[in-house]
């Protein structure tokens, strides 16, 4: 193309017009970029407005009251011994409660183990002590009877059981027992003496038992050495059953005393004589008695 023609053509070419949308967008971006500082300044202006707000002020009485409460509540916690004291107190309370409940469960002796205590099974109200009905087996009169002696007991029904845990001895009288307790001898405080006119007596002792147990029957006297044995008086005579331990029998006619060892039965037939029987009679009664004994000794 000749130079003149080219010049003419260029002169005839005009710049195309931009789209109005593009023009507006570029204008906005140009102005924003140039005014970045302005945008930041507007946010700073907001902060300036925030600075005009007064600081909230609390009521002084509220501040003072809360201060007192805070300092009081923030006092150092109680020392460690305090919980321990509480623990000890709780344990003591539990122990007292347990001691209070044990007699209801096991019997009244638990509270006073150093003396005779009565343990009832079945009908206690049928007991007669010195001709007088005893309403409760832990009645002081009953306990005194075994402590002091010199009284009579009648077990019309049920069962009478007395125990002396400290001495390690337990006595049980079944229904139908007629008993006299002689006055206690001051010369032999360890002596337990029972006159059994009828009915029965079961005895159990522990290794700690020190003393003698004398049982007088219409057919003779028995000195029980322990540990688990029973004497039954019937119309035909008296029977001694020894499950554990030993006893000695002295007849009323003055014959030579007989020794009765463990796992044996010795029968004194009234008007006939004494003899050993095979096996242990009244074994089931002794077994039941032993199970009750295990609760107390």
């Amino acid at each position, binding site marked *: 193309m000749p130079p003149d023609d080219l010049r003419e053509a260029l002169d005839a070419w005009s710049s195309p017009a931009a789209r109005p949308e593009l023009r507006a967008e570029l204008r906005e971006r140009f102005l924003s970029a140039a005014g970045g500082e302005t945008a930041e300044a507007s946010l700073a202006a907001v902060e300036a407005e925030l600075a005009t707000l007064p600081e*909230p002020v609390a009521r002084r009485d509220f501040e003072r009251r*809360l201060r007192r409460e805070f300092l009081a509540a*923030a006092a150092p916690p109680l020392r460690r011994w305090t919980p321990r004291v509480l623990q000890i107190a709780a344990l003591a309370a539990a122990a007292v409660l347990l001691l209070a409940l044990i007699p209801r469960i096991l019997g009244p002796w638990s509270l006073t183990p150093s003396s005779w205590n009565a343990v009832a099974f079945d009908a206690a109200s049928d007991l007669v002590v010195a001709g007088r009905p005893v309403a409760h087996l832990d009645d002081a009169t009953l306990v005194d009877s075994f402590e002091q002696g010199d009284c009579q007991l009648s077990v019309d029904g049920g069962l009478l059981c007395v125990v002396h845990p400290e001495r390690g001895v337990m006595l049980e009288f079944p229904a139908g027992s007629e008993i006299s307790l002689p006055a206690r001898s001051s010369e032999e405080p360890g002596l337990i003496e029972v006159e059994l006119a009828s009915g029965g007596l079961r005895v159990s002792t522990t290794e700690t038992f020190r003393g003698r147990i004398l049982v007088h029957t219409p057919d003779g006297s028995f000195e029980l050495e322990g540990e688990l044995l029973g004497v039954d008086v019937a119309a035909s005579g008296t029977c001694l059953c020894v499950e554990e331990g030993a006893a000695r029998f002295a007849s009323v006619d003055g014959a030579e005393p007989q020794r009765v060892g463990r796992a044996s039965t010795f029968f004194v037939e009234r008007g006939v004589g004494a003899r050993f029987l095979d096996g242990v009679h009244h074994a089931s009664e002794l077994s039941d008695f032993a199970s009750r004994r295990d609760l107390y000794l």
Partner: protein
Amino acid sequence: MEARPDDATAPTPTPAGKRPAAGESADSFPAHLRSALRDREAGALATFYDAYFDRLYGYVRRLVGEQHLAEDLTQEIFMHVIERLGSYDPSRALRPWVFTIATNKVRDHWRSRSHQRNRGEVSLELDETGGWARADTPRPDQELAGAERSARIERAIQELPESMRLTLILRYYKQLSFAEIGEIVERNEAAVRKRYSRALEELRQRLSDLGGEAGA
């Protein structure tokens, strides 16, 4: 713009016209006092209370607006501080720990049923100390231009989303660093910075009709 706390590590200037709270610009509890506080020593406890009462009350009041509610929450916060003292690690700064407790307490309130129920209702409480009551109807004294302007700003802050409101107040009025705020609201520092800017932008828009600098 002397009020803007740009640098998280440097002490920030007190906003113009704002009464500075005691020790607000820095954590005034040195290590030995923090240990004593953890051990509930009486002197440290009193120092702590005196240093933080205004800060915490002001923080809560700005967040919830109402005076009596702010008092109740402030009391709960201090009692909670007592409960938590045993678990406080004196090797760590006290201020984020305290404001975390305060923030959680306010959040608990916001999540409470009573707050949800009352939300949106106009408080009838009138503020006897001036300002910071959510009174939609200006009191006579607020009809003065300055007071009305303050009331508008207060309302605008109250109308911010709760997360923005927390960030704004912790940053601007309590001058906590972005890192500290992040620790409290469980966000990273960048997110907190962004949230703060958004809060300011939100306020700018809400206050655009005020004219003057904020509406510029």
